[in-house]
């Protein structure tokens, strides 16, 4: 137990978390600090490329086994199942209309890559290794949640056209993540070495800058969304990660992941999307209100996971092994 608190305290004082807090603070104080859109996109591409490549290079030296396929399947299934749970909880506790509830549910089935990155960092600081293919699991979990939400929104009737699904599956972030993963698998440790000074060494620093931006956006979202975020919704944003975490923990045990892999799987299940899903829903479910789902995912769940969630998930993963 003591360990968990130590970990949580250390985590709260990591540069990454502090830069996120700085972003929130700047936003609350109405500073004009902003990160240009192009720079934010560039950083995001960099992070995808880096995490994908590193995962792929790890797989190339760790080798492929059945656990990998089980983990991929488990991830995809959870991404499709968790929205149903989230939807039930939302309908029972928050009074959100069906469409909005389905939209929010989609976010919690899908995943947040930055949360995943932060968990990877925490593992690194704790000196715990993990399965390289977990980034592929992350990619596999982005989309099924959206299909689930469309079913939920329309009482089971088919609403989604193939075109929208293609757009979701091939969104830029996933393509870079998965592409870099395969390039990492192909070129292996040698390839990693040749570009490590770019994708490995400065990684944590770039992540700090990115989290500064996330803080700014989250703060802005909270300001915009404060009229829509009722207490039951905020509570949902805080306990739903734990519900997701429970699913993730069980799945990890069944699949047989390592401590690190379990921590990452739990984090994926606990995290909520804020890039891919919102864009997809504007196409597939335009009636759902972004003013609800964006602040909830970005302003409530993301900070929770970043500060308290990740150390907790790591503690759970350690406890389970």
């Amino acid at each position: 137990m003591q360990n968990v608190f130590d970990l949580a305290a250390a985590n709260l004082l990591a540069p990454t978390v502090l830069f996120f807090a700085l972003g929130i603070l700047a936003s609350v104080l109405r500073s004009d600090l902003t990160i240009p859109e192009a720079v934010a996109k560039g950083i995001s591409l960099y992070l995808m490329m880096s995490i994908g490549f590193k995962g792929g290079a790890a797989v190339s030296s760790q080798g492929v086994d059945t656990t990998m396929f089980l983990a991929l399947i488990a991830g995809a299934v959870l991404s499709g199942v968790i929205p149903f749970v989230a939807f039930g909880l939302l309908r029972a506790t928050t009074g959100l209309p069906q469409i909005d509830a389905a939209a929010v549910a989609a976010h919690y089935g899908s995943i947040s890559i930055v949360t995943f990155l932060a968990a990877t960092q925490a593992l690194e600081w704790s000196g715990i290794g993990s399965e390289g293919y977990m980034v592929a699991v992350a990619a596999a979990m982005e989309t099924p949640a959206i299909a689930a939400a469309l079913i939920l929104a329309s009482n089971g009737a088919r609403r989604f056209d193939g075109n929208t699904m293609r757009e979701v599956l091939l969104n830029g972030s996933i393509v870079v993540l998965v592409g870099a993963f395969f390039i990492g698998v192909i070129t292996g440790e040698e390839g990693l070495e040749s570009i490590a000074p770019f994708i490995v060494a400065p990684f944590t620093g770039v992540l700090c800058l990115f989290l500064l931006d996330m803080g700014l956006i989250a703060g802005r979202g909270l300001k915009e969304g404060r009229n829509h975020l009722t207490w039951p919704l905020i509570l949902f944003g805080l306990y739903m990660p734990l519900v997701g975490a429970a699913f993730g923990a069980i799945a990890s045990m069944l699949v047989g992941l390592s401590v690190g892999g379990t921590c990452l799987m739990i984090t994926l299940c606990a995290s909520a999307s804020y890039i891919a899903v919102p864009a997809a829903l504007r196409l597939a479910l335009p009636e759902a209100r972004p003013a609800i789902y964006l602040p909830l995912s970005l302003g409530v769940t993301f900070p929770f996971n970043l500060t308290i969630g990740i150390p907790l998930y790591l503690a759970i993963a350690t406890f389970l092994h």
Partner: protein
Amino acid sequence: MKTHSKKRIEIMIESPLLGRITETLDAHGVTGYTVLPALAGRGEDGAWHRDGVIGRAGSLVMVISIIDADRVQSVLEPLFKLVKGQIGIVTVSDVEVIRPDRF
């Protein structure tokens, strides 16, 4: 220099929908359009700002298309259908051009 009357359609639309808008314009025989980036805005649904945002949700672009007056009605109908449930507005105004046959 003689000028000729045409219509200028200006569409402010949330970015994720841009592809559908241009497909609609293409499908209705519009000869061209130009897309401008927007930086920020406010409407009934609140304010937005482009800075720092990675995803395409929550920001707008502006599509400008110069078209022949005869074509306005046939383009406006499907455009409006598309924009109705989404975040966006469509306006039409008068302009003069030099080469009438281009539009």
